[in-house]
């Protein structure tokens, strides 16, 4: 299995281990996400291999070859408006109390915007944490991990909720071994050789000079 697949799973695991109920993680690019699904899960992070390049100068015909990887981390947040429903539903509430409750309703767009900013913050701190320099893998598998950019998309009113999506690109480098799609067992070559005049096969053996 090529290393980029292991690395993607490792990034996903890093996010999962740090979630603590603040978001959920998916290891694939979901085509559609229902707003209800997202709001029930609070926030969603998707990790998927987005792009890879193999610079010719970084490899050889038989491998291993350098693999410059871009892993896309997608963010989706969905929010409803938030307010004092108790007052709005209170039949004894005065006009002034209702007026105050309505004025204090937090817009879904403001809540979603703040929520996705917080998600960017969390994701960046997890990936760029010095303790995660190897992304949870053995030393030497991954190098140059770097978040190059973060992008926030326009808010979408989806149904009765508001959805904001965003993404960031995580770039890193690894070295891929080329084993072949159906690996072949290596042929053993016998490197033993005999010297005709060395019947005892003593060539190269340290000889004790005190021996007769």
């Amino acid at each position, binding site marked *: 299995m090529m290393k980029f697949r292991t690395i993607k799973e490792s990034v996903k695991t890093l996010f999962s281990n740090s979630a603590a109920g603040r978001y959920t993680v998916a290891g694939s690019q979901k085509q*559609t996400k229902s707003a209800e699904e997202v709001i029930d899960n609070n926030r969603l992070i998707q990790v998927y291999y987005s792009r890879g390049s193999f610079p010719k100068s970084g490899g050889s015909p038989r491998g291993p070859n350098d693999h410059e990887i871009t892993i896309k981390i997608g963010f989706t947040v969905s929010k409803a*408006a938030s*307010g004092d429903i108790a007052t709005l539903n209170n039949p004894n509430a005065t006009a002034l109390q209702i007026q105050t409750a309505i*004025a204090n309703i937090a*817009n879904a767009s403001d809540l979603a915007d703040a929520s996705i900013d917080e998600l960017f913050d969390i994701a960046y701190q997890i990936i760029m944490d010095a303790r995660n320099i190897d992304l949870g893998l053995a030393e030497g598998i991954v190098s140059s991990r770097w978040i190059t950019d973060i992008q926030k998309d326009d808010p979408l*009113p*989806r*149904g*009765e909720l508001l959805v904001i999506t965003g993404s960031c690109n995580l770039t890193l480098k690894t070295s891929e071994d080329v084993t072949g799609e159906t690996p072949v067992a290596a042929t053993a070559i016998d490197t033993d050789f005999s010297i005709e005049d060395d019947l005892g096969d003593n060539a190269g053996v340290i000889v004790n000079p005190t021996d007769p």
Partner: protein
Amino acid sequence: MTNLRTRAITNLKKQNTKNWSTPVIYQDPDGIIYNIDNETGNELRTLQTLYDRRVENPDTGEPMTVHEPVIVQARSSLSRIPAPGEKWSIKFPLDPMDETVLSNYVFTPDRSIEGGSSLGFFRIYPIKLVQS
């Protein structure tokens, strides 16, 4: 004698209030409650309350049905029409089969209210409201 335009507005309200309406309660930014039809004095009802809508999946182009309540309201039912930038509270039944339980929503007509005054209605897209 009323002209055809006036009659069309009246008929639109009568027909749709009968067929597709649900009870509705509005609360305006000043805290005023609207639960009585300003024209008839009866219980305030929507012209139409639509719950689900067919849209095209932007990723695949396939049609899909999404839950998106849309309220169509007769202008003549309210003494004050929501203006862009105003924040209103609205309550209507989430389940069309049970009109006794009203759910809380909020709307701000950021975009121009749909439905010209020539047909006597406007359309709003409420956002779900949860307890803060």
